[in-house]
């Protein structure tokens, strides 16, 4: 997340004090990414070092008033023009976790998936509730609109995650059902997870989806942080 550019964008609307910048940043993004004052001042001093902002006087309490420079404006324009880089995807803990869960001994990957799905859908419920509130108030000023956009981004992101989890589950089931898929690995790789319940999915003889491996690697099971 670019605090740097966020602050420049706010400063373009006029000179601001550090604490003001923090408040405005947060109201734009609905406190989704809270900033502390320290971060704000560190960022401002780097911006100042790079010639993008300057100090112009201070208030009675000695807080500096910051102003954007021409260099800063140019930087900001170029930020808006340039797409966010996707070339080096950020590390995603969930992707890493599932990658590691494939074939991991004693790990029921379906449990891992379900516990994540629970958590992800619950997050979507929360975001959706906030969105419903935001819409009820008919967003008018730009902070409210900005907050709505941020919220919807969170919803889209969690939705993508939920869909991906569904996809992973289906893929694993399909792989597990493929007869004699070779490989030198132990019998179980991605079969392990689904093995218990897959054949049941259509006709259903085995009852419990939860299989042999309780809790070992699905440690964050239950998934819910909040309740």
């Amino acid at each position, binding site marked *: 997340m670019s605090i740097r550019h966020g602050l420049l964008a706010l400063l373009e609307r006029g000179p601001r004090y550090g604490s003001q910048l923090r408040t405005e940043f947060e109201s734009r993004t*609905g*406190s989704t990414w809270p900033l502390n004052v320290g971060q704000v001042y560190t960022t401002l001093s780097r911006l100042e070092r790079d010639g993008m902002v300057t100090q112009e006087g201070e208030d009675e309490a000695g807080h500096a008033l910051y102003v954007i420079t021409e260099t800063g404006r140019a930087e900001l324009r170029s930020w808006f023009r340039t797409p966010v880089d996707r070339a080096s995807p950020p590390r995603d803990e969930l992707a890493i976790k599932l990658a590691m869960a494939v074939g991991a001994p004693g790990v029921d990957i379906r449990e891992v998936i*379900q516990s994540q799905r629970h958590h992800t859908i619950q997050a979507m419920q929360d*975001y959706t509730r906030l969105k419903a509130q935001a819409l009820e108030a008919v967003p008018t000023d730009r902070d409210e609109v900005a*907050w709505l956009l941020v919220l919807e981004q969170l919803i889209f992101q969690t939705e993508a995650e*939920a869909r991906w989890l569904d996809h992973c589950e289906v893929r694993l089931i399909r792989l597990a059902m493929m007869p004699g898929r070779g490989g030198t690995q132990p019998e179980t790789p991605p079969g392990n997870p689904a093995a218990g319940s897959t054949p049941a*999915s259509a006709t*259903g003889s085995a009852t419990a989806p939860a299989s042999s491996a309780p809790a070992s690697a699905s440690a964050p099971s239950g998934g819910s942080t*909040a*309740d």
Partner: protein
Amino acid sequence: MARKSHQPHQSQPSQPAPPQQHSSKRPVLQLQELTRVHGSGATEVHALRGINLDVFPGELVAVMGPSGSGKSTLLTIAGGLDSPSSGRVIVEDTDITTVDRKQLAALRRRSIGYVFQDYNLIPALTAAENIALPRELDGTSARKGRVEALAALREMGLEELADRFPDEMSGGQQQRVAIARALVGDRRLVLADEPTGALDSETGESVLALLRTRCDAGAAGILVTHEPRFAAWADRVIFLRDGAVVDQTLRSQADSLLTGQAAEL
């Protein structure tokens, strides 16, 4: 009503709604040990295996699960369109598995509203007439039926649709009318089977928002969907697999997400 949304961690805690907190209210719908077996012998298929579910007034419950998990079976049995192999379905204190056909039909007219993917409005009737129909079938006079239908439309801000025929309405408008029909009169239970399936996502969203509003106003709803984004409008999301509930989420306090630790993720 709800104000100032962009400080979620300060917004008043939206009461979490685990079922037990409803103890003062009676559920509109209760499913008890519900099973449904199709076929017999070697070809026997257990579509539902011992489902227990209470849905309270004011609550919207989403049911998710892979195809074949039993979602739609659950809904058709809850609405009295199919019978369980065992277990009880109690709608507003009446066990609909024990009543005779006539009583069941009356109960369906009076207490249960259905919303389908393809709207199922009667093409030859206007929106208001479609909404009034279940009331008239139930013995309400045509005039009173129309008054109620107009009230239902007004409550949803849809008055201007009253005299339009289904083919004069968009899909989203038809689905809104279907929701009005589902909840006309004393009906408090709405069963929605992929109600957004035929709609673009924006329209689907607004239909869900309407369903949400109706539940907030006191109706009880079950929503079957495979779309996480629509399920997210519910108070509870139930995950079905192979005919059994494997997991469910509860409404939590939205505050918990947007606090400090979210920033560190």
